[in-house]
């Protein structure tokens, strides 16, 4: 693989850009791999990357039914933060956030990580108490956040109307090292690095069956033929329920649609990410100048990657009360993704009832921020059979009642 650098740009400029190579290969699948990962989204590719980088396992295939990073990886609102309440969550999300800081250098691929600060608004007294509690918890976990008053909020984000009347801003939980990154680039960067390590990324290859023998996984049947494997890792977000069914077990997960929309591009007006859980909306400004707005989930199961109009209406109605300047903006486009939501709003990174089969799912409405940490932890689990980061996120926690309740931290916005 040729490295990307300032020198490479100069070299290619001198020869009419004829020397750029493909970022990743598109091979035909081999008969057998040591590890097969189903799902070439951020989490699946990150798992493959850290399997190779940290554990030296490079006989890996990443199988994708659509195209690389075309699911929730390309549909989220790119927010990165780690201000969670519970210790296991803080550990894995903070691991992820810290890996984002050096990801561009690590992958030799610019993921445009922008630690611009994430502000979660408290617009009711209940939220004020909740976020103060989270700020104390974060202090104990070593995650730097602070609870700030309305004056400071107005200072950080002048376009906000903090006086109400319906949704006054009473304060906010601010994580200065949170921010955004280019979501596609995260998937592309990992794919390029994986391909360079000799892993096969096989797109447009849908898994139609999981072949089992004596309670252990043997391989998968796909639209590109049968492929054997020693270990299987299912990382398919919204389709987790479907693939788990193929593998012969059930999950405590329901798949629902989550929507986002962007406005026409405008001049820079907001240099942080603002999340408002009371009104079910969150917003940041992209480098192109578009206001990127995320909404709430629909209240029913759905696999169509489009959501209900009423939720956009609710989100926008509430947001323009907090951001009056948005009221004249036109919205350019809207889209939906299918998110896999668990009962306690925490992910599942676990072994499964099927031997040598692992699952990473349940990230629900907030998986993007966790991609590197999730991949790091999952690779360790697959390679060694245990990982300190995934220990609390097992499937058995539902039976044993050890929930990692993040419904406050997750709320709607992620």
């Amino acid at each position, binding site marked *: 693989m040729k490295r990307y650098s300032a020198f490479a740009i100069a070299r290619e400029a001198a020869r009419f850009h004829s020397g750029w190579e493909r970022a990743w290969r598109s091979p035909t699948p081999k008969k057998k791999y040591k590890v097969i990962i189903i799902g070439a989204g951020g989490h699946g590719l990150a798992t493959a990357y850290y399997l190779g980088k940290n554990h030296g396992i490079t006989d890996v295939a990443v199988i994708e039914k659509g195209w690389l990073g075309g699911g929730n990886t390309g549909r989220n609102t790119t927010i990165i933060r780690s201000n969670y309440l519970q210790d296991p969550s803080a550990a894995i999300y903070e691991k992820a956030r810290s890996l984002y800081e050096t990801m561009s250098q690590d992958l030799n691929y610019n993921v445009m990580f922008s630690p611009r600060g994430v502000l979660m608004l408290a617009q009711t007294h209940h939220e004020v108490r909740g976020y103060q509690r989270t700020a104390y918890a974060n202090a104990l976990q070593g995650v730097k956040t602070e609870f700030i008053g309305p004056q400071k909020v107005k200072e950080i984000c002048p376009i906000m109307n903090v006086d109400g009347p319906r949704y006054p801003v009473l304060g906010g939980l601010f994580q200065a090292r949170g921010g955004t990154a280019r979501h596609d680039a995260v998937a592309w960067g990992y794919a390029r690095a994986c391909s360079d390590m000799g892993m096969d990324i096989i797109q447009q290859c849908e898994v139609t069956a999981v072949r089992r023998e004596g309670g252990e996984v043997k391989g998968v049947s796909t639209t590109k033929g049968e492929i054997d494997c020693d270990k299987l890792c299912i990382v398919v977000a919204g*389709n987790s329920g*479907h693939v788990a069914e193929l593998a012969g077990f059930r999950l405590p997960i329901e798949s629902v649609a989550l929507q986002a929309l962007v406005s026409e591009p405008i001049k820079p007006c907001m240099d942080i990410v603002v999340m408002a859980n009371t009104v079910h909306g969150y917003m940041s400004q992209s480098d192109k100048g578009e206001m990127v707005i995320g909404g709430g989930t629909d209240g*029913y199961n759905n696999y169509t990657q489009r959501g209900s109009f*009423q939720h956009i209406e609710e989100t926008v109605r509430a947001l323009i009360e907090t951001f009056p300047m948005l009221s004249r903006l036109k919205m350019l486009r809207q889209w939906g993704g299918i998110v896999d939501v668990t*009962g306690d709003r925490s992910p599942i990174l676990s072994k499964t009832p099927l031997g040598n089969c692992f699952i990473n799912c349940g990230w629900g409405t907030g998986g993007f921020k966790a991609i590197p940490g999730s991949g790091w932890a999952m690779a360790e689990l697959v390679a060694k059979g245990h990982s300190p980061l995934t220990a609390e996120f097992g499937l058995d926690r539902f039976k044993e009642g050890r929930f990692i309740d993040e419904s406050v931290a997750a709320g709607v916005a992620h």
Partner: protein
Amino acid sequence: MLILECPYCGVKAEETELHGGGQAHIKRETVGSDDDAFEHYLFTRANPRGVHLERWRHANGCGKWFHAARDTTTLEVFGTYPAQTFEPPKDIIDAITAKRPDWSFKNWQGAT
């Protein structure tokens, strides 16, 4: 926008008038059930890519709970029926199998 007909008051209600209640026909466990049964009852949910049977409440209407048969991949509604039943009535099953010949209630994730 999703439109369901309330089987009690006959109103064709759109989504903002309704409240989704998740999977229908959950077998409720009680005293004497083991841990596996309780885990299944409390947390494991049918999440089919295809025909699904759900609970809905006509929240901004008559306020009653009813069931709906819907396809999660096409958003097609096959019909609604009152909640006081352990399985869908024949006309609902007929409406589903007319379009999805392979479907049967006994093989639906929520029933197995």
